[in-house]
């Protein structure tokens, strides 16, 4: 088990190195340095500034310095938000994004699994068809189309919910962004769950359980649910990556002060260090999350669990 976890952890290191290297050299080849202002600075000041930020050193030294800083969690100063370091900005935005994304993922799993199970138990009934064609619609419509439509309907026409803002994470302000972010994943998990549940329900031990007189809900909950959940568990990694990406647009649309909004603003303002910091942070986040999912999968699946021991 530990063997497996450590092996996976080591496997993630090249990915992170590639990510950091690409980001570093992309920024370095970027036209225009960070101190290019409208007025050209006197050469002494320019030199001093470059010395302060170690821009006068050879490129490879800068690279290793940057690597060392990142390992210590230091992403350098933001060029746009002058009073903040990138680390501070990430620390501000991340809890907000985590709330939004975490709730969206939770909602996607809970509703997706429930709907998928219902559709599977009543396979080929009108319930099944209705759920699955709705799911296909949900999968096809991008979240940046769903979000404005939700606002148009629930906030502007019906005036039930606020159209945007965060308000310290008040639940009323959470409903629309979480819904917009999770719809696609609800739909996809429902389809995934239906497929695997149908397969599990056809297996012999389920027939045995039915034959000994257990009720259908009991069979589904006690015997079929856990094995049927395996594909959903392995989908959690891609789903989380998708939700993290999606939250960039959702935060923009709803004016949520999260990581994604800093990222887009940084991108539009060419705030190199901020953009680079967020990219690396998100890369680490996705890698770590995938690791957790893999370990969770190994815990749930005896085949992998035993393999790790050997």
């Amino acid at each position, binding site marked *: 088990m530990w063997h497996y976890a450590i092996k996976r952890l080591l496997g993630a290191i090249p990915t992170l190195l590639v990510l950091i290297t690409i980001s570093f050299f992309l920024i370095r080849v970027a036209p225009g340095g960070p101190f290019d202002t409208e007025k050209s600075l006197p050469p002494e000041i320019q030199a001093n500034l470059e010395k302060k930020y170690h821009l006068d050193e050879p490129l490879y030294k800068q690279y290793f310095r940057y690597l060392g800083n990142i390992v210590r969690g230091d992403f350098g100063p933001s060029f746009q938000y002058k009073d903040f370091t990138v680390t501070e900005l990430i620390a501000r935005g991340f809890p907000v994004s985590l709330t939004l994304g975490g709730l969206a993922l939770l909602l996607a799993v809970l509703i997706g699994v429930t709907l998928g199970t219902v559709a599977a138990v009543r396979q080929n009934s009108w319930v099944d068809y209705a759920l699955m064609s709705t799911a296909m619609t949900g999968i096809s419509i991008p979240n940046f189309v769903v979000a404005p439509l939700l606002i*148009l309907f629930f906030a502007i026409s019906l005036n039930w919910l606020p159209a945007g803002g965060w308000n310290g994470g008040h639940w009323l302000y959470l409903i629309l962004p979480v819904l917009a972010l999770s719809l696609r994943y609800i739909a996809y998990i429902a389809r995934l769950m239906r497929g695997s549940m149908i397969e599990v329900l056809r297996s012999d031990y389920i027939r045995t359980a039915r034959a000994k007189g257990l009720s259908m809900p009991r069979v589904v909950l006690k015997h079929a649910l856990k094995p049927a959940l395996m594909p959903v568990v392995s989908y959690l990694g891609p789903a989380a990556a998708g939700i993290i990406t999606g939250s960039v647009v959702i935060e923009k*649309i709803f004016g949520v002060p999260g990581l994604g909004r800093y990222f887009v603003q940084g991108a539009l303002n060419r705030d*190199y260090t901020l953009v680079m910091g967020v990219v690396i942070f998100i890369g680490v986040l996705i890698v770590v999350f995938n690791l957790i999912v893999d370990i969770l999968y190994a815990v749930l699946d005896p085949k992998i669990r035993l393999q790790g021991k050997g």
Partner: protein
Amino acid sequence: MTNDNKTAVVKALAEQPAEQILAEKGQSLWHHAWLRLKQNRLAIASAIILLLVVVLVIIGPMFSPHAFDTIDWEQMSVPPDVASGHYFGTDAMGRDLFVRTLYGGRISLLVGLVATLVSLVIGITYGAIAGFFGGKVDAFMMRVVDILYALPFMFLVILLMVVFGRNIYLIFAAIGAYIWLDMARIVRGQTLSLRHTEFVEAAEALGASKARIIFRHIVPNLLGIVAVYVTLTIPQVILVESFLSFLGLGVQEPFTSWGALVNEGAQDMEIAPWSLIFPALFLAITLFSFNFIGDGLRDALDPKDR
């Protein structure tokens, strides 16, 4: 989305032995697949709808008296009206939305097509080489694919846009350069199983060069599967481009794409809901059709799923 459909297809196709496909090719598998596809009314309807969208996007602007970039301050945010020729109304700058939606469609579809082609060329070459040489070369090349696969792609593309400025060709290249990963996996799996078929060995015995064997003998046998896969790649690319344009990082004014139009529409939706609804409808219908066609093709090729 399509991405998720794709993951399943990548798995199925990468594992399917090519001999089996080959052996039946011509007589039964593709023929049967076509018969099954014809039975799938949703997929056929989607194909027809998609064709209509494409035709409309190409010839539609000819039937409008307006140009896509003419600003008319007298006609700002006018609702849809047939008499004035503003079939979908106008945007906040008085530009005709019917023509803009169709022009945006041209860009969106073109990005989808070109980036998919880029991914085809890279993916087929890379996958075929990895699969053909096998062993350490294969292990190394596929490890590279795994590493790239784990990168937060969308964020890197945005970083690229920030560094080099917005540029439609860069978008093509960046998207294509990422999408090829799946293609490389599929092609590699297929090549591995084609590697030891008689006709490849025969070509080797005749002294054909490695490059000739790969591109003349192996690649043509992969094209069927690649074609299926393309249906799933195009909508994914369209979505990525729309996502970037929605954030204001994609195509630049006065040019537009569906993502950019949805973005503008979302800003004016309180006073001009039509400026959101029409581009959103076109985008959704297109993605919807591609999804159903892709689903249908997959089911047609792999009926045990049903």
